[in-house]
């Protein structure tokens, strides 16, 4: 299936990116929509406490007096509508811009409203739609730049994450992985027991994660078949993280960048030849 897709045409690749990213945005908004209790007065994300913080207090958003659960629900519904429109536009080949703009506007408003809820998956999903908005404002060259930006950004993200882990002694000896899977929030009892009994397994897992992350930027330079194998491996990695740690948005948000990575791989290899 992947071989039948073309990663040389910016418009087609932007559509692929949009379709996968729309799933992350839809799911993120739906999960927020069923949590209105977080946004009421004196709830965990009471607007008055959010807007009183340093960064927010200095922006125009800090002057908004009321930003309660109803507004949040409305934003979530519009974001879900935008995500459906984006998926549909990506699949039918109609213009992406109105939908990327709607998703970007609603999503960034939700970032302002609930900064604590923004995960790394939300970060990358937002970066994708904002880049696609910018790309959609110009010619095909601008969309090419947008895809290049998305690809380079995700390479930097993986590389930074991998290097930061490599510098941590508990990652190097595998103990960080054991600690992580032993938590209730991100862990799993069965995996924790297994790794506690087999420290070598923890060590291998830690080094596998660090290797995948650090070597990710190499996908830009590898022969296309190897690059495709690399993104399939990373998709499997995110599926495993979703299953074991409950980070379901990561499974859509990061793989949404992979068509852009393969696009940049194609451009780099053209240039190298």
């Amino acid at each position, binding site marked *: 299936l992947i071989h039948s897709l073309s990663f040389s045409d910016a418009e087609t690749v932007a559509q692929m990116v949009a379709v996968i990213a729309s799933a992350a945005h839809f799911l993120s908004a739906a999960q927020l929509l069923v949590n209105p209790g977080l946004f009421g007065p004196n709830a965990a994300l009471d607007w008055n406490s959010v807007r009183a913080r340093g960064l927010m207090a200095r922006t125009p958003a800090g002057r908004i007096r009321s930003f309660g659960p109803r507004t949040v629900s409305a934003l979530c519904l519009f974001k879900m509508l935008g995500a459906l429109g984006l998926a549909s536009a990506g699949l039918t080949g109609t213009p992406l811009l109105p939908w990327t703009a709607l998703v970007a506007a609603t999503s960034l408003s939700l970032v302002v409203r609930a900064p604590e809820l923004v995960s*790394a998956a939300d970060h990358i999903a937002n970066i994708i739609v904002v880049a696609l908005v910018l790309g959609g404002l110009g010619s095909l060259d*601008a969309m090419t730049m947008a895809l290049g930006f998305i690809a380079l950004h995700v390479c930097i993200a993986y590389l930074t994450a991998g290097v930061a882990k490599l510098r941590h002694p508990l990652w190097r000896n595998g103990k960080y992985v054991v600690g992580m899977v032993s938590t209730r929030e991100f862990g799993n009892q069965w995996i924790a027991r297994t790794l506690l009994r087999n420290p070598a397994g923890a060590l291998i897992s830690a080094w596998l994660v660090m290797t995948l992350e650090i070597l990710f930027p190499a996908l830009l330079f590898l022969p296309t078949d190897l690059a495709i194998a690399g993104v399939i491996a990373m998709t499997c990695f995110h599926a495993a993280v979703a299953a074991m740690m409950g980070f379901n948005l990561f499974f859509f948000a990061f793989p949404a960048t992979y068509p852009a990575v393969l696009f940049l791989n194609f451009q780099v290899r053209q240039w190298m030849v």
Partner: protein
Amino acid sequence: MGRGDAVIAAVFAGWFLLVLLRQLGLGRAFVRRLDVFQLVPGWRLFSGFAGHHDYSIHVRNIDAATPEWHRLEGGPRPVRSALWHPALLLVRVRRSQAISVVSAYRQDKEVTGSPRYRALVGSLSTLPQLQLAQRFQFRIVAERPYDPTFEAMEVYRSPVEAVRTF
């Protein structure tokens, strides 16, 4: 390349530069001061002090005959969390507030006056466990419930707070 595309290219170049600076730890305060939409995130995922512990919050009714600690939330994640995990949001907020309190406490910064601390106290006041309480206290415990060899550690204990009535 037209003029519009040149402007877009300049925006991407500036944005990418900020991303690079943020990862290198250069101008971090500058970027964070501007980045209200979090479009220049730090990408050091799961490499900080907090990633390998739960920071669970426990509360107790100070006025009860036997003021016992009650752990908030918990229980294993359901299998469906791989696809649908709305409960993660409350976990993320509580975790973020707890880590913020612990970080400020460790750095000898003002804890109880910060907006996050006040938000935490406000939201804890509405807990069913404190329905009849006038005053309460909370503590933050670093723990790893699935590791029997790890001893849970109390990392922060709040002063006694009045339950806010609304």
